[in-house]
Structure formats: C-alpha cells, structure tokens
C-alpha cells in the first residue's frame, strides 16, 4: 500500500528518522514510540507537510513528488494537536478542505453528525475546547476518498461516545479498503479495532514489532 525508500529526515543536521526500506501492506498499522521519537515527523512527511529525503509511493502508482496532486487526494491526515486560524469557523475549514479533497456534500453532512460538531460548527475556532478542535480535525481527516488516513493520537481529549465513533469508523473504513497509520498512547481493545501490525519508532528508525502470534 505504501512503499517508503531511503527515507531520511533531519532537523538542523540532527537525524530524527531514517528508514532505508519499509512496505506497509493494506490494513491498520499502529505506530508506537516514546514522546519525541519521530512519529509525528513521520506522519507529517507521509502527509506531504514536511520535506524529506527519499521516496514514498502509494499503491505502486502515486509518488509523493511526481504525482503530488493524485497522492494528496488519497492521503489524509489528522493531527495530534491541530492548530487552525482562531478566527475561522469549523465550517469554513471543512468546506474548503472538502472542496479540494472532492468530498461529496452528503459525506460532509454525515461526518459532521457522526462526530457531533453541528452545534458549534459556525462559531470561531478560537472558542473551541480541545475536544471540539479534535473532532473538527477528525472530520477533515475523513473527507474525500482517501486510500490512506494518518491519525496521530486520534483518541486524545475525546469523550467516550466520540472515541467509540472514531473506532467504529476506522473499522468500517478498513472493511471498505481504506488503510490507516495510527499512533496512540492509549490502549485499544483488539476486538473493537483489529490492528494488522504494530511498529515501533525508536533509535531514529521504524521497526516491526513482533506480534504475540509470531513468537
């Protein structure tokens, strides 16, 4: 699903992450790692927010550099700590992202109701609580027709009902063929969210974690 080759990301000549070769098959992949290990840097690089050395190809066809538009149509990102202009309303952001991601109007409505943001959607983001902001960022992450959704700490600050809605949505989307890269410090019940593989970000690289069944 996602092929990463010779990936390298430095900040001020300090290596943050180097991944010589990694192939993520279709499915739900959980990235674990300590704070500051480089998970968010990797997510942001995959989402096209950060420049990096190396290559990234989705489904063997969409290269992040050669097909930047096609690639970004298929890769969505939900940030751990979203930061948006305080004066915009959630609706203004959703409307803009939905238009560029070519999301149908019915999907926009469905996601707004699913994550319960209709009540405050037309008030300025500056008035949102962290949970409201997180819900808005999740709506943005599911818009359009992505093949890969990156969710960085998708469950933090969410109430129990919304946490369940996010888990259900991920599972449903997985059944429809959408893949996920997740990072979370919260434990998720494997019966509710069947994770296909777990990866560990440590020592400035990414390694597959052996599953209990493998050992």
């Amino acid at each position: 699903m996602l092929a990463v080759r010779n990936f390298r990301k430095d900040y001020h000549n300090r290596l943050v992450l180097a991944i010589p070769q990694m192939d993520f098959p279709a499915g739900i992949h959980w990235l674990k790692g300590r704070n500051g290990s480089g998970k968010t840097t990797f997510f942001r690089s995959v989402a096209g927010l950060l420049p990096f050395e190396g290559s990234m190809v989705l489904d063997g066809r969409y290269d992040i550099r050669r097909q930047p538009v096609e690639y970004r149509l298929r890769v969505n990102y939900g940030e751990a700590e979203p930061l948006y202009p305080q004066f915009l309303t959630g609706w203004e952001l959703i409307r803009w992202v939905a238009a560029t991601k070519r999301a149908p109007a019915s999907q926009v409505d469905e996601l707004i109701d699913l994550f319960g943001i209709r009540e405050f959607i037309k008030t300025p983001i500056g008035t949102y609580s962290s949970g409201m902001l997180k819900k808005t960022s999740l709506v943005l992450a599911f818009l359009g027709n992505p093949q890969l959704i990156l969710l960085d700490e998708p469950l933090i600050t969410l109430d129990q009902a919304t946490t369940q809605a996010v888990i259900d949505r991920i599972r449903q989307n997985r059944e429809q063929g959408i893949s996920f890269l997740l990072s979370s410090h919260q434990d998720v019940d494997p019966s509710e969210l069947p994770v296909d593989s777990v990866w560990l970000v440590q020592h400035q690289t990414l390694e597959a974690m052996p599953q209990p069944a493998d050992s």
Partner: protein
Amino acid sequence: MSALWTVPEKLIVRQFYLQNTGLFLVVLMLGFGFLSSTEHIALATYALTDWSFLGAYVVLWVLYTIHSLRFSLQVVQKTDLLQLFRLIPPGKRVVLLYFLHLQLLAPVIGYAGFMIWVGNQQNATAANTGLVVIVSLLSLLPLPFVERALRNPNPEQFSGNISAWLRQRFATPYGLFFIRYLFREQPATLLLTKIGSCLGILGVLALYPTDDYDIRLLSLGMLLSAALQAGIVFELYQFEANQLLLLRNLPVSIGNRLLGYLKIIALLISPEAVLLIKNHPADVSIPATLFVWLFGLGLVALQYATLLARHRSRDRFMSLLFWPIIGCFLLIMYRLPVWALALAGLAAATLLFIRTYYRSSWEE
C-alpha cells in the same frame, strides 16, 4: 523577585515584541528611513515650542500604549498561569506589573527621553515637565486595567450579532484567510505598511510633473512600495506555516498554488494599483502603468518565494533585501523597460516557487 518576574516577562513582554516585530520594522522604515536624525531633532524642537504639535506626538504615544495594553490584557485574561499573580501581595504585585508594562512602553520612553534631551538643550523647561508628566501617566495607565483583567479571567467572547449573522450565511474563501488574519491579528502592521506604501506612490506621482521625469520614477516608487511589503510577506509565510499547515496536504497543483499566492499578493497591493491607475501621468499609458504595478507584484512574489527557498528569521530576511533593492534600482536606472522587469520578476518568482515549494518548511 526574579522567580516572579521571569514567566510573566516571557509571556507578556517578549511575546509582545515578537508578535509586533513587523509593526516595529515598518515604523523604523517609515520613521528612520525617510527622516534623518537632523530632521528628528528639528521636529522635536518644533514640538517643544508648539503645544498642538506636541499633542500629535502624545496622541501617537497614547495609541501605542493602548495597543500594548490591549495585548497585555488579552494575555492576562487568557493565560491561566498568570492568575497566580493574584497570590502575590498587592504592593509587590503592583510593582511587578508596573515594571512589566514599563518595558512595553520602552519605544515611547526612549523617544520621550530623546525629546527631553533636545528640550534640555533648548531650555524648554515647561515642555520637558509636560513630557515627564505625560510619560509618567502613560506608565501608570495599564495598572487598573490589568488588575481588573486579573479579577475577570477568561471573559465570554461576544463578537456581535452582525458577525454571527455573517458566519451563519457566508464562508470565507481561502484567498481571504490571510487578509482576515491581518485585519484581526496584525492591524497596525497592515495599516502602517499600507500608509507608507501608498504615501510613497502618491509622492512619486506628485513629483512626476515637477520636472522632466519618465516612467523610471514610477518604477522606483513601486520598488520602494514592494520593499515595504516585506513585513507582510513574512506574516503570510509564518501564518501558513504555523496555522494552516494542512494546506500542504491538500491536492492542489503547484500552478494553482502559485496562482493562489499571486491573488493574495495582488489583493494586498491593490490599493497601490488603484492609486497608480487613477493618478497616472498623462504621458505614461495605462498599460505601462499596469506593468509598473506588475513589477511590484513580481517583487513581492519573489520575496515570498525566497522565504520558501530557505527558511530565515524575520530579521535575517529583512536584512537580505538590501542588495536586491540596490540591484533593482540599478536595473531601473539603466533604462531596462519596465515590462521586461515585470516579466523577469514574475518569471523568477514562478521558477523559484515551483522549485522550492514542496522542499520548504518552517524551522524554529
């Protein structure tokens, strides 16, 4: 005392100067770029002998004090950590708040000190006494307001019925996100930049008929105007990198991205276009005037593309503008046609943008 001082100093004073760097740079460019030290001394001397002229200085200082106080009140009301101020004994708290806000008034105190120095040389005792009283009052002004803000943290925001009505019915298009940000977060920078830039354009338009000038004078005016936009260009770069990072994840072609930025920049310098077209000299055609404006558009776009090519701090970015401005000045004076300069500027900005957009990133 230093334990009580460090955190509020970093949250209020340093943040105020950091967030208003653009404003201070514009003020420095306007106040010390156009006026020499001799002219400042002459103006101060006149102000010390004319109370109404001194009043104009005081109005500016009061406006600045209100601007800094507004910032301070927002920080105090919205930063829960600063509520700890209420645990400090009142006397000590007032002293702390006084000296914190005195730092915000440093530019006013500095300029007033310069005027007092001039006044001493002119033996203007009455005016100097007035200046001391005014600055003392300005330094005391924030105390009751900050004390009140400490007692009323996190006030309910009410943006008005009209704003609420507009938000329910209309959505801001992407092209206006940054313009709204400027009006809301950096109004002083926007206002001063536009005043300086438009005065420059009006100045060259007024100068044109007084001698045997040609279109190069308008090009020089536009060059000055484009240089004055540097603070706003940096704001655009910072705004998109920090608050609109998701833009880079959106499936928009590089051509449309470039077009988007050109539209934003065109909108920003549209007042200059109106002034040029409305007041263009009789012997300079409208197409030629438009090329003068396009020359400015290309220069501003090139500034933005330069920031993408390599992240630089605001100060470094501003200081790097000097030699390109000298280069453009020489190109204009060597009679290169303005249409060629305009097209070359736009082409260079386009090439640099396409080459660097996806490789660029904000670096702390």
